[in-house]
């Protein structure tokens, strides 16, 4: 008995081509219609820095930048990414392999513990600073309100965000 003969077998398996840019690299991927961006990134491309946690857009562990905006990869269908620029945590940082100041701030301030929320947190802070270089505390809170951290109590994360903001102030 083949799976396609059975009532209720998994659907949406038809492949279609997805052209997008991921971490600066133009890609053409064969992706089933029902796939989510999170699954394409993690399972097909082995970009496992984007984390899977709640899968309902609540925790932010799977946050990536799509055309510079932070979005939850768990809520994004792969086909919606056609023609878009996607940046995952692996694509954050200087071209020479150095770190982005936001990453460095998280590292130096201890803005992480288990680190599972960290890629999403860094994406959110990065997106915030790119659109609002000198945000208020309220803006930082708002920007990170969709990212849950269970380890730090957000103390280190707030300190990291503040430090990244200070660095940007000092050297815009």
């Amino acid at each position, binding site marked *: 008995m083949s799976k396609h003969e059975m009532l209720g077998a998994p659907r949406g398996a038809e492949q279609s081509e997805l052209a997008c840019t991921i971490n600066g690299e133009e890609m053409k991927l064969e992706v089933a219609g029902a796939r989510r961006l999170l699954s394409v990134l993690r399972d097909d491309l082995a970009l*496992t820095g*984007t984390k899977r946690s709640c899968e309902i857009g609540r925790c932010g562990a799977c946050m990536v930048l799509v055309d510079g905006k932070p979005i939850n990869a768990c809520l994004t269908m792969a086909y919606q990414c056609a023609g878009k620029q996607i940046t995952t945590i692996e694509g954050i940082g200087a071209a020479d392999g150095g770190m982005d100041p936001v990453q460095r701030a998280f590292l130096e301030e201890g803005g992480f513990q288990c680190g599972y929320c960290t890629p999403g947190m860094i994406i959110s802070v990065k997106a915030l600073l790119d659109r609002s270089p000198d945000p208020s505390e309220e803006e930082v809170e708002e920007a990170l309100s969709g990212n849950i951290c269970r*380890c730090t109590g957000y103390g280190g994360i707030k300190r990291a965000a503040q430090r990244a903001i200070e660095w940007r102030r000092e050297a815009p």
Partner: protein
Amino acid sequence: MLLNRESSGKRWRIRPDGLGKVTGRLAYLTDMSAAGMLYGRVLRSPYPHALILSICTEKAQQLEGVHAVLTHLDVPGLNRYGIAHQDQPVFCENKVRYVGDAVAAVAAETAELAEYALTLIEVDYELLPIVDDAELALLQDAPLLHPQGNLLHRSQFNRGQLGSGFAACTHIVEDTYFTPRQMHTYMETEGGLFVPEEDGRLTVYSPTQHGFMDRLQLSRITAMKQERIRIVSSPIGGSFGGKDELNVQPYGALLALKTNRPVKLHHSRWESVRAGLKRHPMKISMKTGTDASGHLLAHQVRIIADTGAYATLGAEVLNFAVEHVLGPYRYDHVKVDGYSVYTNNGMSGEFRGFGGNQAIFALEGQLDRLAEKLGMDPWELRRMNMRMPDDPGPFGQPIVVTEGAMQVWNAAEASGLWQERGMPNREEEREPWIKVGIGSAFTMHGGGLGVGIPDPAGGRLLLAADGCIEAIFGYEEFGQGLLATLALMLIEQFGLAESDIRMIIGDTDLVPDSGSTTASRATSMMWKTLQNLKAPFTSQLLERAAELLGKSADKLAMGAGGIYETAGDSLLLTYKELAEAKGERISCSTAFQFPTSDTPRTGAHFLYTYAAVVVKVEINQLTGRVRVLDQYHAVAAGPVMNPQGFLGQIEGGSSMALGFAITEDAVMQQGQYMTKNLDTYLVPTIVEHRGTVSVEPIEHLPHGDSFGPRGIGEVGSVTLAPAIAAAIHQAVGIRVTKLPIEPELLQNDCAFAFAEEAVSKR
């Protein structure tokens, strides 16, 4: 001095696991995959209590791309697991007892196919009456979950004569406290990769807090020798006690062995919620009395803990709660009666604080109520009744001499936040429906597993062939900063540079069994291990160096990069040169037990950490919502091993306590979870964390103390909730008895009138 980056100076260091975490390059065990890998899925019971009449897997077996469908008939060894009591079925045979109970498992070529295959497994159930209330479960006519009855464990403690104790009391308060089914909510859900090796061994890449315990349990289940199983167990995306028991491992292991292919399992959040452990919901009734001046005379406690369908560590958690409902106070007459009860609710188990959280919320509530009756400052009442440095522990057991109780009491008393309490409340600056209050609480919290429970510790140091000094421990890094703490201790105690060190943890093929990474014990035990190893390891190194250099060993010293002449600054010999020299490999190991008290009382502790919390909260009487504005934590745990880690653990623990106090409850009705994911199960976000968290470590230990740093992994999570309750009372005069705090309790009709008036004025 408050703990922060500035006050820590050079000891504020970048974590060794930091770079991989901020770049996303660190592969967690649930990120792993392997060529030819299959996907595993577990079929779980939809019913909280039912008989299994039949299981038919034929249709699922026939599905193309499905490589294995397993039931209880396919378990080669023991079809049970559990750290302390092996009573949880790997696969249920004839009865399910909660909605996470596993009935079958599938391995298929895609995750979707595995999911679909589950729907083709036909299980015929006969529903049984549901036992969803721990108290009712103890009644004589309650349906039985287990043949031996619904009582997992009873724990009692008696001292003095309760009747005459209460008869002598001038003031008595009585209340009942309820605490929620809190969820660990580690961000990385349970999962892993299970690889059958060519030589017939099995490698398990799956997070756990104790690799050797998993290995033992998997060996029982698979009927394989322990040595044939390798457990790789770090890094972990959070655990907090929740990944100490087996979770996906039995299924991944059995599927991999059956198919002879690597199998990946990774729980969805809903699967994690239904199958995973929670904090034991407890109902704690207390009656406590004092004489006219406020001295505690009598304390009576009844604890009912809902342990769910299987034992896990329910008995041990209850024992801990029984100890901690007594707390750091002196009384002559005490009676505690605790029951851990099976129900058809979700599984309860180990969770940061281990029953202390529930106990301390209740006990500190009693102290506040008594102070009110006495017309006394609640903090002063605590001082009057607290244990003295030489006093025995809560069970009357000998414990290490400690000034911790008074130290944290004094620190909190002197804190700016507590002093603020006496200052004028600037009501006019706020909307009339916003009220502000300040409260405090304190505690002693035991570390280690306690009397009568195997609690091994130890580790190994060796000079590797490439000149790295390897520190090899059986502990796990689940985010708490264990690697950073170990690195800092090696740097500070041995004079090493970071580049001289290689830390090896979390792999049963490579490390000694150092006991579980739990019960706030790992830092203490790593410190003790290094103390034991320092002299023999250093002297071995220096003697070898002395031979090579033709100098006397006592003129040489270890330092960054190699061996130095004590008198001068020049590097005489690198560790690499030392490693390349002829002779036996330089290596030292030590093994010992976590120190325990000389008492027969199972679970009683010997080492304690003390903490006091002051908290300022704001209550919105329109919404009934509580917001924590500022927190002060004094923690007496001996010398701070790792400032960043210490601060992070207290901040993080307090965040968990905040959730416990104001939002978190895995709500169940009729044995079914109502809160299935993070949209309804609400853990604190950054928005709930306004204001400051000040952490003051008290590092001073009594003269001659040889036990060094005490654990702090749990103590930050146990004292905030009662302090919040005290602050709420100070602000609005309402006593909270049930957590999480129900907003309805704090809403105020007068506030609505104020609000209407304010709006009409605009």
